[in-house]
């Protein structure tokens, strides 16, 4: 296993953190109409996990997926433009913050149907194996997915056929407002073990711990050892979605948030990087994000006449909803 690049991990965590904070600003200013599901607090999972991957490896993201996209190598400006519904976005504005894909970076999709990515990941991995490739598929989902039957059906196929999938559960403690302990019978790792899938719980706040654990799983997958499940213990400092800025749902105590702030993934990684290096990186990140935001908000919005573009591969369009 290669050693983690502490500086690169710091830079990625810092980049995701500030990208997310900038995206929340764009929600407030009305540029991102959908709102977003910020991954602030969970950046070490994206940064550490994706740092183990090769460019040809494939990621399936989730609704809280901006960190996955950035860490897998998507162009940040085109990701932000996508979230803002611009034609320059990675999906021409059709995927948005919730359902992005970017095949140029091998991010295949972020299905909105929670838990269903596991079977899709198995299918991608199976096709890769049959094509003689050594591709690894990494499938991200939250703790809310582990109570979905479809997730387990995907686990079963991946385990049965020994497929090269690394399943990463970002357990941030809440499925929207529902605490994990009131939703999940048994354990999350037990769900993988039941299918013969090596499963472990990992400190998701420490990017280098994440990197080490995921590296082992990726190596196992790539060498024909089959799937793994890693439960990342993490936390989101923001709400489920930016609508909570208005609704102020009281499903958790401030003391709990404060306690998790003591293990902020940005601080944990910052402690491994010299102050002058950090200062330089922080400055570079801000300047890059200035350009990212400028690109996004200055990019053109789609023409309403194009609303039915891309619905069918052969260019077929549905009939209009109004009578002729």
């Amino acid at each position, binding site marked *: 296993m290669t050693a983690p690049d502490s500086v690169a991990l710091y830079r990625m965590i810092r980049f995701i953190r500030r990208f997310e904070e900038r995206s929340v600003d764009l929600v407030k200013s009305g540029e991102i109409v959908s709102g977003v599901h910020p991954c602030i607090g969970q950046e070490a999972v994206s940064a550490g996990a994706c740092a183990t991957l090769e460019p040809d490896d*494939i990621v399936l993201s989730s609704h809280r997926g901006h960190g996955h996209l950035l860490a897998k190598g998507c162009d940040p400006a085109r990701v932000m433009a996508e979230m803002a519904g611009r034609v320059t*976005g*990675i*999906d*021409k*504005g*059709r*995927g948005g913050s919730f*359902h992005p*894909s*970017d*095949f140029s970076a091998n991010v*295949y*999709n972020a*299905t*909105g*149907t929670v838990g*269903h*990515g*596991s*079977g*899709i*990941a*198995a*299918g*991608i*991995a*199976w*096709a*890769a194996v*049959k*094509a003689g490739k050594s591709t690894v598929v990494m499938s991200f989902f939250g703790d809310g997915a582990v109570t979905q*039957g*479809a997730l387990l*059906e*995907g686990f*079963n*196929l991946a385990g*049965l056929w020994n497929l090269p999938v690394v399943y990463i559960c970002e357990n941030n403690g809440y499925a929207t407002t529902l605490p994990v302990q009131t939703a999940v019978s048994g354990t999350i790792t037990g769900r993988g073990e039941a299918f013969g899938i090596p499963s472990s719980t990992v400190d998701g706040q420490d990017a280098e711990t994440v990197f080490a654990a995921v590296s082992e799983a990726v190596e196992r997958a790539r060498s024909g050892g089959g799937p793994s499940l890693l439960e990342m213990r993490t936390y989101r400092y923001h709400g489920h979605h930016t609508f909570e800025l208005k609704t102020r749902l009281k499903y958790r105590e401030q003391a709990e948030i404060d306690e998790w702030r003591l293990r902020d993934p940005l601080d944990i990684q910052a402690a491994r990087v010299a102050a002058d290096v950090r200062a330089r990186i922080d400055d570079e990140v801000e300047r890059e994000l200035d350009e990212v935001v400028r690109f996004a908000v200055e990019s053109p919005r789609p023409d309403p006449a194009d609303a039915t*573009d*891309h*619905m*069918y*591969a*052969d260019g*077929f369009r*549905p*009939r209009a909803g109004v*009578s*002729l």
Partner: protein
Amino acid sequence: MPKLSYLKALNRALGDEMTRDESVFVLGEDMNFALTNVTAGFLDRFGPDRVVEVPLTEQGFTNFATGAALAGRRPVVEFQIPFLLLLVFEQITNQANKFLLMSGGQRSVPVTYLMPAAGWRPGWGAQHSDQPYSLFAHMGVKTVLPATPTDAYGLLTTAIRDDDPVVFFGPLASLTVREDVDYADLGPIPLGSGRVHRAGTDVTVVALGHLVHEALAVADELAAEASIEVWDPRSVYPFDWTGLAESVARTGRLVVFDDSNRSCGMGAEILATAAEEMRLTAPPRRVTRPDGAIVGAVPELDVVLQPTRAQLAEAVRAVLKSPGW
């Protein structure tokens, strides 16, 4: 000329495509024993890497097919029971059929969902006899419902070659239909192209799936009373509205013979569109299933809820007798 059955046409079309294109593979339950007979002989011909036996995990293997398609393969997913398409309705309509759109056109999901025994099974109870093709049209999923062996061959070939998800309904009542064919004449049939099975001048009967054969029988029975045109859309989505309009322009009168339920079914859509856009000289009629489940395990109860020849004959006579609007 050789006789080709509908079931053998499916076997032949799928086998031909698997031979022609190595990216095509088939997966389904009881595949190792070719339970439905669609894949008879395939395990020996193509091997287990392309004839994939899956456990009872419909949502799992439907998503699996989506993944394999995103990775460049052309899966054909076989289902044994029509309601299974409702179990995976979300995976087809909300995932596979939307990924091209949500990716801004980057990558489509070329999966064929093959339901080779759709519709009523006498005595098989309330959960085995559905015919949910209208639901897929409602959701904008390409959906075909061929009635004859030649059309089954052609539309399964097209479905597999199409770059989008396509649902293929093979009516159970059509599987044993046989037809004289010259194999050289078999070939792909475009989606959205209807077919006049019998030309007529007094009334257009739009018949779907196995009801095409019932409609042809009724047209024979009523030949002394009326010249009935039997028109078959063959694919319910996209739908050949131009072809239907041409038929209605010839006859001016319309009856739809549809194995869907009445509410929001293809029959409803065809009548509505005809009323809006076509020159009907009399109010149209439809013959469908009532809404809801087929009753259950007693064929005598089931059969009165199926669209029948007698109902069609009555509807045709009523439309012909109508004084107009």
